[in-house]
């Protein structure tokens, strides 16, 4: 095979990108004007813009999730945090004298995000200080969190009418949806912080071997604590976006299954659930795939409720595609001299 082609094919984002392109091509085939974007009232409109806007919360949550998974953890509580932060912000705004004043909105947003940070810190505390397995530690907040959100909204769906708050999830800046700018902004911050400083390296080392990295002098405890706080922050902002987009807080359904979408985005993006190497770019593409898949189901004209079946099939296929390849790749990384000949010899036998 042509060496360039094989190098491109071996790139870990090759399959995710192919999947994304295939989905987009499918959309264009069914609906030729899929790519058309028009400018109206100074805002961009079109299917692609919709994908970006609706995908923003998933991207944000997946971003936090990537770093958590990189430390060999998982954060199941993001859906609950989404519900809590949306519920709190909407309750504060609904209870204030002037819902349209920017100060009220800023205070509400500030308080919600602070709470989201605290919830993230709580998860981090359980995982890093108490030493509970991440799945279980965050399961606690996943169960109790919905209850907390119901407590905040008193079981009601809180509807609000606040123009400044509406901007976060439904507004436009510079002709683009504000939500996607916020999400990409967070993405850029995370990318710069982890890839331009040693932070990313430390996160990966904690994920590869917490014990060894602690002995080598990495403060694994603070690193783990930090990624959960970051995940809480991302989920909190996503919660604001979701509640602002529908101008209501629904404690039961806001962010329902967003943790699944986020984990899928991370997995599809090529980050291993076993911790260690992670790819923020992969997560970006993964989130785009998830959202495009949802949109595709609409465009192709399948009942939207069946999206779940498609997501399940995509996950299964991607996991199966990745698993043997991942094994050999991990194998060749760890034991280069011994493993390589074994792989080629089996390959030879097979062919």
């Amino acid at each position, binding site marked *: 095979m042509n060496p360039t082609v094989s190098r491109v094919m071996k790139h870990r984002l090759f399959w995710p990108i192919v999947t994304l392109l295939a989905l987009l091509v499918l959309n264009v085939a069914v609906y030729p004007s899929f790519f058309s974007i028009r400018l109206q009232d100074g805002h961009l409109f079109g299917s692609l813009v919709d994908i970006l806007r609706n995908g923003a919360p998933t991207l944000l949550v997946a971003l936090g999730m990537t770093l958590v998974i990189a430390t060999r953890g*998982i954060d199941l509580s993001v859906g609950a945090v989404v519900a809590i932060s949306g519920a709190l912000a909407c309750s504060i705004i609904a209870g204030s004298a002037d819902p349209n004043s920017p100060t009220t909105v800023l205070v509400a947003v500030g308080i919600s995000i602070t709470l989201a940070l605290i919830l993230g810190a709580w998860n981090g505390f*359980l995982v890093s200080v*108490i*030493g*509970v*397995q991440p*799945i*279980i*530690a965050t*399961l*606690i*907040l*996943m*169960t*109790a*969190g*919905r*209850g*907390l959100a*119901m*407590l905040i909204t*008193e*079981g009601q769906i809180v509807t609000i009418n606040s123009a400044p708050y509406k901007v976060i999830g439904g507004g436009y800046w510079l002709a683009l949806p504000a939500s996607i700018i916020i999400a990409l902004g967070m993405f850029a911050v995370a990318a710069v912080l982890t890839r331009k400083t040693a932070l990313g390296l430390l996160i990966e080392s904690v994920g*590869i*071997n*917490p*014990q*060894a990295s602690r002995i080598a002098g990495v403060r694994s405890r603070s690193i783990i604590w930090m990624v959960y706080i970051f995940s809480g922050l991302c989920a909190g902002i996503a919660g604001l976006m979701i509640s602002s987009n529908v101008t209501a807080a629904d*404690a039961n359904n806001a962010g*329902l299954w967003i943790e*699944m979408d986020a*984990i899928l985005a991370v*997995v599809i993006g090529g980050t291993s*659930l*076993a911790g260690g190497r992670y790819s923020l770019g992969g997560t970006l593409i993964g989130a785009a795939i998830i959202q495009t898949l949802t949109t595709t189901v609409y465009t192709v004209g399948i*009942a939207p*409720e*069946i*999206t*779940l*079946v*498609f*997501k*399940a*099939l995509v*996950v*299964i296929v991607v*996991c*199966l595609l990745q*698993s*043997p390849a991942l*094994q050999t790749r991990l194998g060749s990384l760890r034991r280069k001299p011994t493993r390589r000949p074994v792989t080629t010899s089996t390959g030879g036998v097979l062919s």
Partner: protein
Amino acid sequence: MSIRTIDKPTAPRPRFDRPRGRFTLGSRYTPVLVTLVLLIAMWGVGATRYRGFLSVQMLLNLLIDNSFLLVLAVGMTFVILTGGIDLSVGSVVALSTMIAASLLRAGWPPLVVILIVLVVGSTLGMLVGLVIHYFEIQPFIATLAAMFLARGLCYVISLNSISITDPFFVDMAQTRIPLGPGLAITPSVIIAVIVVAIAFFVLHYTRTGRTVYGIGNGGQSALLMGLPVARTRVLVYVISGFCSGLGGVLFTFYTLSGYSLTAVGMELDAIAAVVIGGTLLTGGSGFILGSVLGVLVLGIIQTIISFEGTLSSWWTKIVIGALLLVFIVLQRLLTTVRR
């Protein structure tokens, strides 16, 4: 993996011998005993506060209202004992109710319908188990995919709730088997108790049961000891899938309808029951009867909250979350003491 390799030498050796009666703090009975004390205490508190709480029928009602959860917790116990987790149970329950309701509406005989539901549940479980074992995909992600798949298949069958009017199912829902003056249980309770009994026997008195504990204590060593690891690891997911199917059948006896959005989050209840029942999430230690106690604790929380009247139903979730926390921290402390 590396953390496990470092931990291995200090980890407690797999104990296959029959438990001896020494109750130290590090004993593996401690979590179960704590749960038992908690259950009695909660019952006592309820009895002093509310009239009608102190009846035997109240306890039987706990079983009647939670028979499906009991069956789910049994399946989940097997999976968690091997160190895995099954997130698909809630969705499989929903899928079972949908399959049962739609086939019954189409006029299929009830026993065939039940058989089909059980086969579908077990098959799904087997596929998950095969994927987990042979593709080395984490149980968490494989069962997550199964969860999506089952939930999506529900929607494919129907978006609306389908009610069940089949006489056999209605009979199963309404029959009360008298146990004495003023005491009665449903057939579902009997089915659930039989499942618990079989599971107890399999887990504590057969080779398969020992292999389950062996895998939980360290898959590698179980493999080296010549235990059928592959078969057993797939088998626990088949058991869990079967239990989810059966739980779904019992759930339709309870609700007499099939609905796609039913049982959302039921997997969390099952996991919570198993954890509160004293099974270690890392696998290798725990008891079926502990999970039964866990289910009863969850049931009694719901009963107290409904007796209280002024408390809203969402307090249930918060209390269950808090209890989970207490028991998980307890588990951590106990495992530290044991080392």
